[in-house]
């Protein structure tokens, strides 16, 4: 078995999916699984993860860990060879791998393998996300600046506000809910270029939400920052280990069922309404449905999504992309947001995913 250049990975995956019991196809596929696993572990190590086996001095600790991880990734049951791989690709609609695009297969494979590694590492109780600690430390340092004030601890909670609002804290108004804070943190992130600016922008926007008090709980602020940072800075499957990705066969089946049901509901309850109001035509509705499917699939299988305009760009012809803001933004965002809401509601009702409630 030799090493493979990364350019050939998609073709190797395709050959394996077509002939999994062909020894040459299997050996090549195993080779790229091994190389990808070691590469990903090396990356995690460089990012500060304390991986199992690191204390071992005999042999290569990352190779040992990769072997452990691949044992569960490529196992076969009595009924079926390689169920982790095939249940995933079948559910994604790759029942005919001959016709699949190798780049697409590589992307899907990468998502699956990294999800599996993260899941297994979580089971091995790997120290969770050292970069989160680093980020929190950075923000705690920023909050020590004289521009911020911290209210004395109450029941273990610290409250933070901008010093300039010292005399106008709108004490009579309700507290800012966490969901609102999360949206504010994301909006502030998109408009800032450094962590200090980001932190200041968050408080500026909090102050502009005049229906609430203009202070935030410190632990909620840090949680919101970590969440937004993970979404953007740690993109491409590099999200820290928090909760396992639900790729196990049964869960995948349930998720795929929920996606199909959601898309059907979306067409009847949302898209047809927009067509009726002449906000979009039926061809655009079909493309929006495709975008919703991609979005839900990314959300369900990776826990991460790109920005909404990215999905719009993927499904719409070039001529219509430039009028996104003026002609489509509202309809498209409403479509996707409603799809996500409906999808989550459906999952919460399915018994198979009850233990993963926190994930959703």
């Amino acid at each position, binding site marked *: 078995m*030799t090493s493979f250049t990364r350019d050939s990975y998609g073709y190797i995956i395709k050959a394996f999916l077509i*002939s*999994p019991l062909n020894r040459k196809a*299997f050996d090549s596929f195993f080779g790229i699984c*091994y190389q990808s696993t070691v590469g990903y572990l090396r990356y995690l190590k*460089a990012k500060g993860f304390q991986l199992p086996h690191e204390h071992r001095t005999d042999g290569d600790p990352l*190779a040992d860990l990769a072997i452990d991880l691949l044992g569960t990734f490529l196992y076969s049951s009595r009924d079926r*060879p390689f169920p982790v791989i095939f249940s995933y690709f079948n559910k994604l609609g790759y029942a005919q791998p001959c016709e699949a695009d190798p780049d697409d297969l590589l992307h899907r494979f990468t998502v699956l393998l990294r999800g599996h590694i993260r899941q297994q590492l979580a089971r091995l109780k790997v120290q969770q996300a050292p970069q989160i600690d680093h980020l929190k430390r950075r923000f705690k340092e920023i909050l020590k600046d004289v521009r911020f004030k911290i209210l004395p601890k109450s029941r273990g909670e610290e409250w933070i506000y901008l010093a300039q609002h010292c005399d106008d804290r709108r004490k009579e108004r309700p507290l800012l809910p966490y969901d609102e804070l999360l949206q504010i943190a994301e909006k502030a992130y998109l408009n800032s270029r450094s962590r200090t600016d980001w932190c200041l922008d968050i408080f500026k926007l909090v102050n502009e939400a005049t229906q609430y008090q203009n202070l935030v709980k410190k632990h909620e602020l840090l949680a919101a920052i970590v969440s937004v940072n993970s979404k953007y800075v740690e993109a491409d499957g590099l999200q820290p280990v928090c909760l396992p990705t639900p790729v196990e066969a049964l869960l995948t089946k349930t998720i795929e069922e929920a996606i199909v049901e959601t898309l059907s509901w979306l067409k009847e309850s949302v898209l047809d309404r927009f067509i009726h109001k002449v906000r979009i035509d039926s061809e655009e509705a079909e493309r929006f449905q495709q975008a919703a499917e991609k979005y839900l699939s990314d959300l369900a299988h990776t826990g991460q999504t790109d920005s909404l305009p*990215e999905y719009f760009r993927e499904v719409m012809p070039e001529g219509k992309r430039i009028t996104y803001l003026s002609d489509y933004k509202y309809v498209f965002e409403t479509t996707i947001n409603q799809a996500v809401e409906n999808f989550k509601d459906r999952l919460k009702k399915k018994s198979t995913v009850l233990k993963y409630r926190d994930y959703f």
Partner: protein
Amino acid sequence: MHPSGKELKRFIENRLDELSVRRIKEHLQQCEFCREFVENYRLFGQSLDDAAEESIPPEALQLADRLYSDALAGRIISLEPLFSKASEPKLHLAADGEKEFRPRVQNLTTLYSENPEVIMRVMRDLDSGEDYLQLISDDPAFSAHVMVQVPELKRELITDDSGQAMLESGFLEVPEKLTWQIKMPEAVFSLEPLVYDPNKTEYAKDIVLETERQDKIKVTFEGKTEGKQISIRILELDGKTDFGQVKVSVSQRHASAFKDIKRDESLSFDLVDTKDVIKVRLYQ
């Protein structure tokens, strides 16, 4: 607004036009978040590139062997007719001369499987009149010491290490109309020379072997006056002791033995060579 993750990846991979590159470079000078993303992505790509250049260690290759064997365990490989018409001797003409070519074997039918690639030919030796089947595959796992089943006739045959199995006379009236399939063993045990030394076996000695799937057998080595022998008894299959009847095949070099056994029965096999691997295969 920050560039999207996809745009930044294209930037790192030099897949953007000049204008976009300039725009992203300007953005990166001001934005620590996107700089961090780019650093992450570069580090990630470098980690993958480094790993892709390394060879795979022997321990990982052993794992690959085990995973592949597990994938094959108990699988049924259906064989489809490639062409049904049996080859017939050509008509001999006077212009062909005196020496008539007379093949020693006749191909009765050919069957195949596409995934995995296996060819099975049902042949007749015209000299001896015996029929046999021949499995052909790049990977001996699909041809040597595998079980060929004909469900309509409730017949099962085990091929030898060259992929051949003899067929009883009269067994094949219309071979192309029968259903032929290969059944891979549920479990394979390998007794390496280091594990046993029959020359030192002056008395019976037991060894228990177990697979990761909780298939367990007991192998007893016996030194007898007529030669060295092993006997095999099944203890568990898939972790269960009430496994009913199991077909056991033992092979060493060209020799093999095959028998249906139950829990308290055993299969005996005369060793051919004291330095060669013995393979034990279980079929259910």
